[in-house]
């Protein structure tokens, strides 16, 4: 495939150059925060649009680069920078990297386009140039994370990614919750990185080099105990970024705090960098391990999925709700990866390939619909300036396009056929069911439980999105914010349109992407076609056993036909439909009031009751007394759910640390005599030591 190798170089240059220019260019347009004059506003706008233009261009380059690598089948490599004391740095875009690069770039295109319109509201209010700078660096660092072919470069760009995310989270830093979220995020991710550092150095100890290539060469030479150590480091280190339970607590704080275009990127691709790392280490650097690895990952996956969606159900903050769903979806992705680990430890490469494929396809799909949903949420927040869905409602009429795209996103994340979320969950189910072929008791227990909880997760997710979508867009506006809402600008809608289209396309034509992703899995497990085959673009089958399949393309066309059929049949049988618009019955009042609608809290109450052990909800009802009995009294209802992780894991750790620190701090007494005594004691101890 010699012909295609000339081009990746160009695309690579476009990718790196585009983001770099985008980052730098905007900084030339820095103006003071309160620039009100028209000309300076114009300059600011110009700078920011140039920045986003470059990032769009660079993302296009990234897409082209990843496709050219995936199609060519040979990795794109580059070596540079021999100046650090760890040998040269290198870029190595293999199949796996190319796949993740495709996810990043694709979402990058959409979000960059969205940002043109979305950031207009910052002009004149905030330092937009810095935002554009950070945005471009953020995208660039993520692209470099997957492209890095060397642990040092990986760590550098990994941390650059963390820092830029931190600054983006606290971009609206006047808000103390943003600052707290930023601190929480960066602290957790830094601890994760410390583990990764240890892991890479351990690997480098065996490979005598920091290059991934060298890691791969020694994968069979590492003793099992060290392997386990590396596995755990990777699981926790990358899990921190991915937001697995119980390391997820930063995620619901950080995602809402960032501007929505950044939330989309964070949730859509940044947390996937954790998944990328896991796949890279588990399947590329490590030889298949004992079966408890897979079981542990499955356990974490199940916990993340179920708890993620349950916490999401309790949320009324639209962006926090979406953030909890990211935890859920990371869980679903990890089900695929855990199953792949489990299967590969039994040597079933074909099964492992299907499971990994399911996980990776969900990575792509989640990026699409979660990106779409965050952009939609951004559009809602942009229009109403509130994230509390109990203050929204009736936006269907004010933001018709946003509503339509959000509906597609909601349907996709709820895994409704024939959208993309359905396909990847279907694949995950199939992958898990294949596990029944493995004659091992632990597997046979783990698989049904995982299946059950995946099913539970899917159902709860649907409930949650009925709530989120219904309360936000349907019914009557619950506040003045919602009443004054207006539709977003074209660029924002266009970006959402792209992603909505992707959700549909990856759903009805999964064949295209799956044949690309199977190149990734076959790079780890060899040919995997025997366990899953793509009959045509729109039909997948699992030939194993008696065979089972799904054809979303057919489903969609039949569904369309069946929607039309009743219209026609009804017309034939009973004539034209007669409709009349009228006010609904308002229980005797003159007209329906928004307060009569079900609230988000009310909607999720049955589920809260069912899972009360997990939520530990407490509520407070306060009825103000001073009002007359004949007049509506004010009732305040406050509901709190308690995080078991906060209470039993994080709070004790924090308190113990502080208590220990307080004890150590006593050594600095302020008495000079004690300081001199320290010197004396040290001297005496050392004299003993020197003996």
């Amino acid at each position, binding site marked *: 495939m010699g012909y295609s190798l000339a081009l990746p170089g160009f695309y690579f240059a476009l990718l790196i150059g585009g983001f770099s220019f985008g980052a730098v260019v905007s900084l030339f347009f820095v103006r003071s925060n309160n620039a009100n004059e028209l000309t300076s506003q114009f300059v600011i706008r110009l700078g920011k649009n140039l920045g986003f233009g470059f990032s769009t261009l660079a993302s296009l380059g990234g897409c082209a680069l990843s496709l050219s690598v995936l199609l060519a089948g040979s990795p794109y490599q580059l070596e540079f920078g021999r100046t650090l004391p760890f040998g040269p740095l290198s870029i190595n875009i293999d199949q796996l990297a190319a796949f993740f690069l495709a996810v990043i770039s694709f979402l990058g295109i959409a979000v960059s386009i969205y940002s043109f319109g979305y950031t207009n509201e910052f002009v004149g209010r905030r330092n937009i140039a810095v935002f554009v700078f950070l945005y471009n660096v953020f995208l660039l660092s993520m692209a470099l994370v997957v492209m890095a072919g060397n642990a040092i470069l990986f760590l550098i760009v990994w941390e650059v990614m963390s820092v830029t995310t931190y600054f983006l989270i606290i971009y609206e830093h006047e808000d103390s919750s943003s600052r707290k979220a930023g601190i929480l995020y960066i602290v957790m991710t830094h601890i994760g990185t410390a583990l990764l550092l240890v892991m890479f150095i351990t690997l480098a100890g065996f490979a005598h080099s920091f290059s991934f290539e060298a890691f791969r060469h020694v994968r069979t030479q590492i003793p099992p105990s060290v392997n386990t150590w590396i596995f755990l480091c990777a699981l926790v280190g990358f899990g921190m970024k991915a937001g697995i339970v119980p390391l997820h607590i930063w995620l619901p704080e950080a995602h809402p705090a960032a501007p929505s275009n950044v939330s989309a990127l964070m949730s859509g691709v940044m947390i996937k960098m954790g998944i990328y790392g896991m796949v890279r280490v588990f399947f590329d650097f490590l030889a298949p391990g004992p079966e408890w690895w897979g079981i542990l990952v499955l356990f974490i996956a199940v916990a993340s999925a179920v708890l993620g969606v349950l916490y999401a159900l309790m949320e009324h903050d639209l962006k926090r709700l979406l953030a909890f769903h990211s935890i859920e979806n990371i869980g679903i992705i990890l089900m695929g990866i855990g199953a792949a680990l489990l299967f590969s430890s039994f040597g079933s490469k074909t099964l492992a390939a299907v499971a990994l494929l399911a996980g990776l396809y969900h990575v792509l799909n989640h990026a699409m619909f979660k990106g779409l949903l965050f952009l939609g949420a951004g559009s809602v927040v942009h229009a109403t300036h509130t994230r509390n869905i109990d203050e929204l409602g*009736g936006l*269907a009429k004010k933001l018709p396009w946003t509503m339509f795209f959000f509906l597609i996103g909601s349907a996709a994340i*709820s895994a*409704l*056929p024939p959208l993309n979320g*359905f396909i990847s*969950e*279907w694949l995950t*189910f199939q992958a898990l*069911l294949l596990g*029944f072929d493995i*004659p091992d008791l632990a597997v046979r*227990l783990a*698989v*049904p439980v995982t*299946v*059950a909880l995946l*099913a*539970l997760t*899917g*159902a*709860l997710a*649907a409930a949650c999105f*009925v709530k989120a*979508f*219904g309360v936000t867009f*349907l*019914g*009557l506006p619950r506040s003045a914010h919602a009443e004054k809402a207006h539709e977003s600008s074209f660029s924002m809608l266009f970006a959402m349109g792209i992603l909505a289209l992707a959700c549909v396309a990856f759903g009805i034509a999964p064949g295209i992407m799956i044949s690309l992703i199977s190149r990734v899995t076959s790079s780890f497990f060899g040919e995997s076609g025997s366990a899953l085959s793509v009959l045509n673009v729109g039909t997948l*089958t699992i030939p194993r056993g*008696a*065979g*089972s*399949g*799904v054809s979303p393309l057919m*489903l969609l066309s*039949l*569904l369309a036909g*069946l929607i039309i*059929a*009743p*219209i026609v049949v*009804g017309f034939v049988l*009973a004539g034209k*439909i*007669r*409709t*009349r*618009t*009228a*006010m*609904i019955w308002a229980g005797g009042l003159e007209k*329906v009031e928004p307060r*009569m*609608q*079900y609230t988000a809290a*009310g*909607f999720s109450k*049955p589920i809260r009751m*069912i899972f009360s052990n997990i939520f530990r909800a407490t509520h407070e009802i306060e009825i103000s007394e001073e009002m007359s009995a004949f007049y509506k009294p004010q009732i305040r209802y406050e509901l709190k759910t308690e995080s078991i992780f906060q209470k039993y894991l994080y709070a004790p750790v924090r308190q113990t640390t502080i208590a220990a620190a307080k004890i150590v701090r006593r050594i600095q007494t302020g008495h000079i005599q004690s300081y001199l005594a320290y010197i004396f004691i040290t001297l005496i101890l050392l004299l003993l030591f020197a003996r």
Partner: protein
Amino acid sequence: MIEFASTFIVSAIQILLMLLATPLVCGIIRKTKARLQNRRGATIFQPYLDLSKLMRKEVIIPSTSSWIFRITPYVVLASMLLIALLVPTIFAPVPFHWMGDIITIIYLFAAARFFLALGGLDAGSAFGGLGSSREMSIASIVEPAMMLAVFTTAVTAGSTDLSIIVNRLSTTQASIIHPSHVLAFAGLFIVTIAETGRLPVDNPGTHLELTMIHEAMILEYSGRYLAFLELASQMKLLIFLSLLANMFAPVGMAIDTAPLSLIVGVAAFILKVAILAIVVALVETANAKLRLFRVPELLMVAFVLSLLALILYSIIGS
């Protein structure tokens, strides 16, 4: 080409059969219940009359609603029809079986429910929200229970394709009475009760705000929209009964399109569904409506039964 045409013809037959049988099953249940309660009750064809009346009535659309309200009846009905195409009734495999397996069917139910719940919220009335909330909460436990129950048979047959499952189970007699299937059947039966809104989970006969689930969601619907929704919900009942009948007792199922076996198939199907309908009526008569927050306990029973079924199968093996 002939194959293609026959696919369509056979499918059309199946869908028509289902459409025709749907109100009848509902009528049988109502009649049985009436009889058990020492009433005479309406004729078993009453549902047909109700539907045709509703078809001709005017639709009142709430001024507060959006287009979601209007597409919901079509989406819900279309989903049910689509499922009806995928579920084996009198013969297996159904022509379109490769299009979607049991997972697809369950998610199609979910899709219908998703829109139905949105339709309930769209009008902005308190009842709609109440119904949607309850429906989604109950479904969140019912859906996994159903999936597990079905998977128990799916892993026995080595496929998630419903037609293949049924076909396999009807041809290889040995594995029919796997102990796990008993549990799965019990689980799926409870699921059926819950999913189709029968007593003791929901009461299809009343409009009392304390108890309403399904009826609350469709409270604002009228005329032809209501007819479609009613038809859809009745069809759901039939689909569930066919699932129960054919997955666990694929006796008499036609495995080719020979006229004789088709006739046997039809007869067997009608018999099995009728028996199940009467059982449902018996259950409905024998039980009082549960308090709403007692319902999850019942559903948990279904969930646990189904999970146990799958684990049991998993451990004992075939």
